[in-house]
Structures are given as C-alpha cells and as structure tokens.
C-alpha cells in the first residue's frame, strides 16, 4: 500500500489550523463485483481503519467501509500545537497495515 501525506498550506505557524491530506493506493473492492472472465465474485478488500496521531497522541480515528472510492483520499483539519511528528496508520480488512510519518515544522 503506497501512501502520501500532504499538509496545506506549506508554511504555517503554531496555533494555525492546517489541512492534512492522506492518500492511500488501495483497490477498495466492495465484494460485490464479479471477475469479467471467470464470473467469480472478487472478495472484499478495503481500508477499514485510519488513525491520525501527533507525537503518538490520537487526533482522529476513522472507521471506513467499502463505499469509499478507489485510492481513497482523507482530509482533516489539524490545529498545529508545535513541532513534532504526524503519524498515519491505515489498516485494511485483510489485516494489511501501513504506517506513514510526516514532520510538523511550524515557522514561528
């Protein structure tokens, strides 16, 4: 699972509210689609949990179902309390898990 964290805007100060974009490359199979050649149902495979942590403190937890689009995007707000590390942990229903980090470096 490839992932990407983007913080918008690029320059921010302590106390400012920024937007955090988290993207994951994932097929998000619903479990209701059939294979075009064999006719067999493709088993469900979707991200079911995403956690956003700042310095290991939970900011936001998401419980997700298969209704989200392929390669899902998650955008949340975050009030920057100071410098630190943002960590995003995404897990899918097959138990595959991925951890991504990004530094939070406020200017001033």
């Amino acid at each position, binding site marked *: 699972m490839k992932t990407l964290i983007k913080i918008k805007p690029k320059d921010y100060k302590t106390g400012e509210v920024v937007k955090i974009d988290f993207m994951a490359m994932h097929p998000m199979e619903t479990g209701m*689609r*059939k294979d075009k050649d064999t006719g067999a149902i493709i088993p469900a495979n979707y991200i079911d949990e995403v956690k956003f942590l700042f310095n290991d403190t939970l900011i936001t937890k998401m419980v997700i179902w298969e*209704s*989200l689009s392929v390669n899902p995007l998650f955008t949340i707000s975050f009030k920057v309390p100071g410098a630190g590390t943002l960590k995003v942990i995404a897990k899918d229903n097959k138990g595959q898990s991925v951890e991504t980090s990004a530094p939070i470096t406020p200017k001033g």
Partner: protein
Amino acid sequence: MERRSFLKSFGTAAACAALLPHVASAADEAKKVVGPNEMNYETAVAAITGGKALIPSAKVVISAPEIAENGAVVPVKITVDSPMSDKEYVKAIHVLASKNGNVRCANIYLTPANGEASFGTRIKLGGTQDVVAIAQMSDGTFLTAKQNVKVTIGGCG
C-alpha cells in the same frame, strides 16, 4: 430512461444491479449479490444515534456536486460549525449514502486537537441518492444535513 438503455447496451446492468440492490429493478432482484456489510439506512442511523432524534441543522454543511458524472468518484466535503474547545466539540462525523447497498461510508471520530470539524473524501454512489452527514456533538445531540446528488453513470466496476 436514457441512462438505463445506455447501461444495458454496455451489458453492465446486471453487474450494477448486484452492486446496488436498492436501485435495481424487480427483475434484477433475483441476481442480487449481498455484500459483506449490507445495511440499510434506518438500521445504520439507529446504530449511530441509539434511538435519539436527528436534528436537521444549518451548522452541518455538505459540499458535494449536484450532478456527478461518474458515481465511482464523488468528492464530498463536510464541515460542522463548532468551536472545537475541550468543553464543546464535535465527537464524530458519520457519512452515509442513503441508497448504497451498505449505506455507511465513514465514521470520523474527532478530538479538540483538530481545531476545526471538517472531513473530505471521495465516495462511490450507486445511483442518484442523498448523501447524509450526521454530526455527534459533545453535548449528546445529533445534528444532520443531507444533499441530493444526481448520478449519471453508477459507480459500478
């Protein structure tokens, strides 16, 4: 009617019906494939609120396109007007698509550290339906808002 004949000409109507039982015609109902998390709107709302009343509120704002050309990727943004202080904040935002096989899309559990109560994502919509947002406030009330999205091509395959 144009949409239906268009889909049939592509031979994907059966696949669509399987994905979206609630918008399928009666003839297609027999071929229905039930997804792993099948849940209808009433059950999902009851599970979220625990029987409490939903209050329609202008504090909850959904921004989604009125007409989505592609049901597989519908951008949805939800903001809830709240100070997000330790005493008064939005505990959770629930996103539902009222006529998908599994109406639940995402439950977002927020904390005051978010600063603002907002959530953006892209969802799959099987057909024309309401996108519903339910905000669970820290005082125990449930505020809601909905927006109808017209889908010209369903989110199948």
